[in-house]
């Protein structure tokens, strides 16, 4: 079998030599290792003052996008809920009334859209499933809270505000776009 590293040692239960029996050489080499670590760079990030840099394609808290005119893109088709492996998404669809054209893009919209952030595994399958480019994962993190109820995020938290749009282009790398294109083509086939 091929070894993964060259650091593995073959162990045996042979009798210990005198030097091994008195422990001291082993202890000495041990304390040399620990003292070396005292002067190494610490791995800690002092969190509230400093934040760790996120990956470009970090999958964090979701956003429900609006279109250019500020109307919600989601049509409550339910594909994201079907795609979700953790079954974290629920929604209630409703029909658009007259005069609400500036609020909702198409005739059907999600009256209620909830993601249970405790169930969500942030896999991004909802984003892949969405045919309307309505849901995206962003580099924002889901913050801590006191109760389980607070983690069921409704539309108030998910839909992006009109005057504070959330940038989702960072995640749309050429590879991701290519992947989505391929998927669309395979659907049509």
């Amino acid at each position, binding site marked *: 079998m091929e070894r993964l590293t060259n650091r593995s040692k073959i162990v045996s239960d042979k009798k210990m030599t005198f030097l091994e029996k008195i422990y001291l050489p082993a*202890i000495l080499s041990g*304390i040399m290792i*620990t003292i070396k*670590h*005292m002067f*190494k760079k*610490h*791995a*800690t990030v002092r969190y509230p003052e400093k934040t760790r840099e996120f990956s470009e394609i970090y999958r964090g808290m979701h956003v429900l996008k609006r279109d250019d005119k500020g109307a919600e893109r989601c049509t409550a088709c339910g594909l994201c809920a079907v795609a979700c492996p953790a079954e974290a998404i629920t929604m209630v669809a409703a029909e658009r009334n007259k005069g609400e054209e500036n609020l909702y893009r198409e005739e059907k919209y999600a009256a209620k859209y909830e993601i249970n952030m405790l169930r969500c595994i942030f896999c991004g399958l909802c984003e892949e499933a969405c045919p309307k480019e309505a849901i995206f994962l962003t580099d924002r993190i889901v913050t801590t809270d006191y109760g389980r109820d607070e983690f069921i995020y409704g539309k108030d938290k998910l839909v992006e505000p009109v005057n504070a749009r959330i940038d989702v282009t960072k995640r749309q790398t050429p590879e991701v776009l290519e992947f989505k294109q391929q998927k669309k083509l395979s659907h049509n086939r």
Partner: protein
Amino acid sequence: MTLLLFKVLLILAVFAISLFMAAYSTYAERKVAAFMQDRLGPDRAGPFGLLQPLADGLKLFMKEEITPEVSNKFLFVLGPSLFMITALMTGVVIPWGNLLNIDGINYSLQITDINIGILYVFGVVSIGVYGIMIGGWASNNKFSLLGAIRASAQMISYEVAMGLSIIALVMMTGTLSLKEICEYQAGGVGGNWNFWNVVYQPLSFLIFMICAFAECNRAPFDLPECETELVGGYHTEFSSMKLGLYLFAEYINMFISSATMATLFFGGYNFPFMHDLGLSQNAITIIGTGVLFGKIIFFIFFFMWIRWTIPRFRYDQLMNLGWKGLLPLAIGNLLITGLFILLNNRG
């Protein structure tokens, strides 16, 4: 300033310093552990987390004090108190410094120089094990009892080797008084050549140090309170400041045993070239006390260093090391020392 007033002040100072060192040892322990594991350790309370011991102390005071229903109430309180008292008592015979000259009168920076100093330390430390034993037994808990039994067995086993290792030193210096042992090493290098005792008795020092680790219940000999096997060992049932007393007393023990090691083997308050620099007596004393504390802090650091390096011994390994390893070694060391003294006196 009368002698009495000076002694009272000295006692208060030693008491305060012991507690201060214990409090900051807890901080240092966490910092050293963190640094050796590439972490930062406590750094939120005050600059660099320096107020952390205060926060910890406050937390321990505010915690609910739980006394188990089935425990022996009197002994349950006596255990931690006894452990703390014995820990604080040992500081009395340590020479914290040389003579201090105030208004033409020499004051010794040692609370009392009894002629059996080292024996006194041993005696008091041996009483300390009762604190653990009583506390563990009074909790009426199997884990506590197991921890207490382990603690007493371990302390008794290692005290034998520790005592024998010291006898070699006592034979060499011809005194039991810590002050005189300290004086014996005065001068350091330069002037009149007196080396530290560790040069003459390295093996004795090694045995003494290993036994000191065991006596303080420190890793790798922390079997009485090993979390992985016994929850918390003898202090499983203790909470609030009673637990605090146990933890605190342990750090005071560490401080005192560091001081003892520094005094016995590393010249105590003596430092190299102390008589060659042309300093006044008071200056030498003050620098000497600083040097002693430097040595003590190094040993405390060494305690922590070892703790975060070596895993815990198995119980049979512990007993093997104590009875079959250290005890014969200490006796051998004793015989060799005796032989050398005999030959020297003849020639």
